[in-house]
């Protein structure tokens, strides 16, 4: 298989196509526009549909329509655009429809800026719109992982009939790295619930309106049983030098990469640091992190936000260990040096130096 230099955003688009996604609805926004641009170039040539909607709200409703018709569909945006799509994400989830939503995050709140950020962690992992629901949230750290997780996103969406969000940041979207696309056989289950014309079968209804509270409660309980299974079976994470680590960095996406440099630098100074990188943010890899808390002395949540994932870290380890943060926000990216400085400070507090 040939390795190509692929840009993160283009890798998302190409991987989606190889996963059988021939329907894309979106609206341009930096720093993810290459996803749409790639789809616009490719999809019409292979019998697919690329449509630039008049707004993010329109795009997500087109996604709902395509998903209800039983086809693989994706939309892509960046932070402010995802806020606009959030009403639709709630409806999509209320209808139990499978779709893939990409958020290449930029600084916020409001229009914010266009530089990389992770300040949509709460929005992504808590469901973003109103009502009782979650999206599965996948957080790639390399371009190869973008390819692999984009495909996985489609398979998971169909398997559980849920929305799956690919949560990246401006660094991952814009950078190029060697990656292999290769062959892929998508796992597409039968979709007997889809709206395909009702010829020769009873009609299907795709809807999120339940006026009977008992019935709505029942559907919500059923949906949450799915989430329980997802939390049990679909957790992904990566550990780097955690076996003997006193200090464990927790970081995903771009900071997850930068933490590797900091861990290597700390090790060179004789500090036993390690990195725990969640790959699924919902479900959060709580069990694995809790296990690390048996021996690690302190955790440091490294985020491009004012501190959002840190809550999940504390919940995971049940506050058994101190959890520090190393935070940059607004589009500013950590340097390995400042993370190393934080490691040193924590080592001092733990009496390790």
């Amino acid at each position, binding site marked *: 298989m040939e390795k190509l230099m692929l840009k993160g955003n283009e890798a998302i688009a190409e991987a989606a196509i190889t996963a059988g996604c021939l329907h894309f609805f979106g609206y341009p926004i930096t720093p993810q526009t290459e996803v749409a641009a790639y789809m616009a170039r490719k999809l019409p040539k292979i019998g697919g549909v690329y449509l630039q909607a008049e707004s993010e709200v329109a795009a997500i409703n087109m996604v709902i329509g395509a998903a209800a018709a039983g086809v693989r569909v994706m939309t892509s945006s960046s932070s402010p655009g995802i806020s606009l799509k959030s009403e639709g994400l709630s409806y999509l989830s209320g209808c139990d429809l499978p779709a893939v939503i990409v958020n290449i995050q930029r600084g916020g709140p409001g229009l914010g800026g266009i530089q990389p950020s992770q300040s949509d962690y709460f929005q992504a992992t808590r469901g973003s719109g109103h009502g009782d629901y979650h999206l599965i949230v996948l957080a790639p750290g390399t371009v190869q992982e973008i390819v692999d997780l984009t495909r996985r996103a489609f398979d998971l969406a169909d398997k559980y009939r849920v929305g799956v969000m690919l949560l990246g940041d401006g*660094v991952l979207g814009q*950078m190029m*790295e*060697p990656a292999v696309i290769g062959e892929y056989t998508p796992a597409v289950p039968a979709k007997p619930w889809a709206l395909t014309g009702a010829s020769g079968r009873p009609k299907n209804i795709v809807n999120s309106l339940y006026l009977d509270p008992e019935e709505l409660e029942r559907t919500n309980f059923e949906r949450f049983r799915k989430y329980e299974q997802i939390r049990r079976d679909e957790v992904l994470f990566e550990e780097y030098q955690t076996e003997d680590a006193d200090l464990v960095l927790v970081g995903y996406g*771009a900071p997850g990469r930068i933490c590797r*440099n900091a861990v290597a630098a700390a090790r060179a100074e004789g500090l036993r640091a390690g990195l725990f990188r969640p790959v699924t943010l919902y479900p959060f890899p709580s069990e694995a992190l809790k296990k690390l808390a048996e021996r690690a002395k302190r955790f440091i949540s490294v985020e491009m936000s004012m501190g959002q994932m840190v809550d999940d870290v504390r919940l995971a380890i049940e506050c058994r260990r101190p959890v520090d943060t190393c935070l940059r926000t607004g589009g500013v990216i950590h340097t390995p040096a400042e993370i190393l400085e934080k490691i040193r400070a924590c080592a001092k507090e733990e009496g390790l130096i």
Partner: protein
Amino acid sequence: MTRNMLIAGFGGQGILFAGKFIAYTALLRGKEVSWLPSYGPEMRGGTANCSVIISDEPVGSPIVLCPDILTALNLPSLDKYEEACAPGAEIFINSTLINRKGVRAGARFHYIPATKLADDAGIPKLANMVMVGAMIKRAEVCAWEDASGAMKKTVPERKKELFDANLRALEIGYNFDGSAVL
């Protein structure tokens, strides 16, 4: 071994392409490599830059903060990044557009009149690749043999004219001996 490179200049000078080309030379040698562009408003006429990291290990941070090799196509880029360079850095200066000497202590400076060399050769848009040619020779960014392979990956072969022009620009930079008075 890891080499951190920063290429910077005006938007439109082919900064990102130059970086992509270098990234491909590394990919063809089986190295780990990352490429990260600036993507802000500077792309539309200000100072654009591009980080390229070539390593034997998986690349962590793709952002070059402390370049081992800095290639400045314009003065604002040299002003902005020169002091951040690593000790002993190789600094490539487009001396057609930058009319000052480098000042970073301990660095090795290469003055390449890339814009003029490209103009004289009738390929005025390819000063970027003249600089890359000089980088290949003087900083041993890759072997010369890797260059045409990387060119095949970055310039579509159906655009033969463009392919040849880029290769010629590389050769001009590669062969520039620095003694010519310009």
